[in-house]
């Protein structure tokens, strides 16, 4: 039997890719380790190496094919003593064993990387386009990914202000570990786009020092998990100096990078730090969901004279949204956004959890419950006004976050509701959060540990006293 070569998964979040090029031709000999084909993911072009040796018997998926699902047979490899005749039986069978039909819906192909992963759960079929009150009527909208929006925000601010520079691991030559800084080295050069050694505490502190001396650093953490190495400089130096100096010295700096669980990268690489930083006076904390907010808020963060913690999400990087085409689109820090209006229950979320909340709202609508979904966008300072106003209308609040429940964002919201909306509450505030355990690796456990749409639906029904 010839060996099937399957479309490989080349990253934690990849579900499909494009077969860019066949390096080996039918009939060519291959040795283990030889590059046989090139595959494009949305992040990179990767080479596929042969695992076994033999002869490339037949190519099943021609080059140029797009949206090839992981695990689809792409070619047949003949073993040492097999000849081409062996191909016929196998080739006939091969397509039948594709895990996904070839005509997988095109809309599906546009789903974010990892959208179908256990951890991610499903995204809504179309990205909800929230109303954009900050944008003048008639503004042209452009579709772009969160990744591109973040890059554009940095590029625009770097063009405007020479004191802005970007520093972090793999941000320059590699174009960013998650390709967020793509093209910045080319445009701004080594002086302003700087690869650091793996030394988070060191470069975070160096960034704060440069900020104190009047530059405006953007410090990228490859992921926020690694910023725990740098926590002391972020809190003790960046957050507290202005106060300790009686206003004499502070620093304008942005710390940014992906936050929260990605897909099956286990406990040390999957943590939501929102409530950790939200706890600290002297910081601003931002966690956008849409590409427009990612862009507008990052521009605001870079201009802000204070240290800003900017929490992104890897699962959102490849997700596309409408972004206004404006010369200078800045979203103010400190303002939440109502992304879906409703009158029965208020659901708050930030970052990826806004997607979950919107999906839950769609499910609830089918059951006659109209949920109002608020994207918090900024966690510190919290826009309590918008939330309280909504709760005065709905009389119920469900808070959704990926982080742990104890002393979490939801705990703070519950306290604020008691202080400021007690008389309007018809039910106790409900918290949907990650489970109170380090994030497990196993697919089934990871899914259980992260907030799912059903959890939000159930919480909303509970506060509405509905079965």
């Amino acid at each position, binding site marked *: 039997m010839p060996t099937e070569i399957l479309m490989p998964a080349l990253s934690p979040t*990849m579900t499909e890719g494009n077969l860019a090029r066949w390096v080996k031709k039918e009939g060519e000999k291959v040795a283990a380790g030889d590059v046989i084909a090139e595959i494009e993911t949305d992040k990179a072009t990767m080479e596929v190496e042969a695992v076994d040796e033999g002869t490339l018997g037949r190519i099943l998926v021609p080059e140029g094919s797009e949206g090839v699902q992981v695990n689809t047979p792409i070619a047949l490899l003949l073993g040492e003593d097999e000849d081409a005749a062996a191909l016929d039986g196998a080739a006939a069978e091969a397509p039948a064993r594709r895990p996904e039909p070839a005509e997988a819906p095109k809309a599906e192909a546009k789903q974010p990387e990892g959208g179908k992963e256990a951890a991610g759960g499903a995204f809504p079929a179309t990205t909800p386009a929230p109303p954009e009150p900050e944008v003048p009527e008639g503004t042209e909208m452009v579709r772009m990914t969160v990744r591109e929006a973040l890059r554009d925000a940095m590029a625009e601010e770097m063009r405007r202000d020479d004191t802005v520079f970007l520093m972090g691991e793999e941000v320059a030559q590699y174009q960013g570990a998650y390709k967020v800084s793509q093209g910045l080295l080319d445009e701004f050069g080594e002086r302003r786009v700087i690869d650091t050694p793996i030394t988070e505490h060191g470069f975070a502190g160096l960034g704060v020092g440069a900020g104190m001396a009047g530059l405006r650093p953007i410090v990228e953490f490859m992921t926020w998990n690694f910023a725990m190495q740098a926590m002391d400089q972020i809190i003790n130096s960046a957050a507290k100096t202005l106060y300790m100096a009686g206003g004499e010295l502070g620093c304008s700096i942005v710390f940014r990078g992906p936050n929260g669980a990605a897909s099956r990268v286990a*406990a040390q690489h999957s943590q939501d730090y929102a409530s950790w930083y939200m706890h600290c006076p002297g910081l601003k904390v931002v966690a956008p969901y849409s590409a427009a907010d990612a862009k507008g808020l990052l521009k605001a963060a870079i201009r802000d004279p204070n240290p800003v913690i900017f929490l992104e999400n890897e699962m959102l990087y490849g997700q596309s949204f409408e972004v206004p085409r404006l010369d200078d689109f800045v979203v103010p820090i400190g303002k939440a956004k109502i992304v879906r209006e409703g009158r029965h229950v208020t659901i708050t979320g930030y970052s990826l959890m806004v997607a979950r909340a919107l999906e839950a709202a769609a499910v609830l609508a089918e059951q006659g419950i109209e949920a109002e979904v608020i994207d918090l966008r900024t966690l510190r300072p919290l826009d309590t006004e918008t939330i309280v106003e909504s709760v005065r209308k709905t009389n119920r609040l469900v808070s959704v976050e990926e982080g742990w429940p104890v002393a979490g964002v939801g705990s703070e919201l519950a306290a604020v509701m008691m202080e400021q909306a007690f008389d309007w509450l018809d039910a106790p505030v409900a918290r949907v959060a990650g489970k109170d*355990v380090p994030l497990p690796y*196993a697919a089934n456990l990871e899914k259980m540990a992260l907030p799912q749409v059903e959890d939000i639906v159930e919480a909303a029904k509970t506060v509405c006293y509905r079965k």
Partner: protein
Amino acid sequence: MSTATRSGSKARGADKGGSGGQQALPSREKLLDLYREMLMIRRFEEKAGQLYGMGLIGGFCHLYIGQEAVAVGIQHALTEADSVITGYRDHGHMLVCGMEPRRVMAELTGRATGYSKGKGGSMHMFARDKKFYGGHGIVGAQVPLGSGIAFAHKYRGDGGLCVAYMGDGAVNQGQVYESFNMASLWQLPVLYVIENNRYGMGTSVQRAAAGPALCERGHAYGIPGHQVDGMDVVAVLEKAKEITGEIRAGKGPVILEAMTYRYRGHSMSDPAKYRTKEEVQEMREKHDPIEQLKRRMIEGKAATEEQLKELDKEVRGIVNDAARFSQDSPEPDAAELWTDVLVEA
């Protein structure tokens, strides 16, 4: 793989770790052991890469292909009293510490039979009975931890030492130097092995590390540093025997920089555009640790082609069995979500 310090080798002439290349070979049995263990890692990692491609392994998966001689050579200089700790490129170290291929693979697929019940994955496995302390995902964190394990060896006076592995990128983390200082101050029995595979993700050593060779990074603390050809398993073994002898004699920490190379990307999703194909090809063709040893054994009549082919078959059998086991095992029970957060007091 236990008390393995006594090999057939009498030669100490080729002290310059591998550069001489003329040291007398260890015994035939020892050579076959070294060969078999390197091959086991190679085949195991190839299989892991394959399972990843099939979506059976998720998240990050950092393969050790190309670096086999380092972990294998070092391990043969250790005794059962000694401990090992490393980062996330850890499958090879686990296998040479005597951990079962089946259970390592089952952890990679996130199954209940894995070393961490499926809760840790590729980067987080531990085996106390093998004195293997993980499996750590935060670059550099294992270095103070390894120093602490060495502290415990000294505290108990059990005669053991700790090998703390780190990469050429990890060596720039501040906590590495805090560890060096304490280890030297307190003369801890620790061997710091820097696996210099030339890159930390996409950044070459030259772009990340100032100063002379990484093995010199302990000089300010009075820690001796050595370099060895990490593609030559015999050289690694000989050097490690010499160094561990000194550590056991109570002379305190030592740094060993093993010059090695990883053939694959940093993790599965690395397009590896930061180096040339020729560079990778050259290492594979001229310096492959397994091929080198094979050639030496055949030329020195320590083994025949057929014998080694047979061995390869046997190793493949074990790896295939592990892969099957890792797919047939069940996912962890839902109740496991809540266990092991704290020990019941």
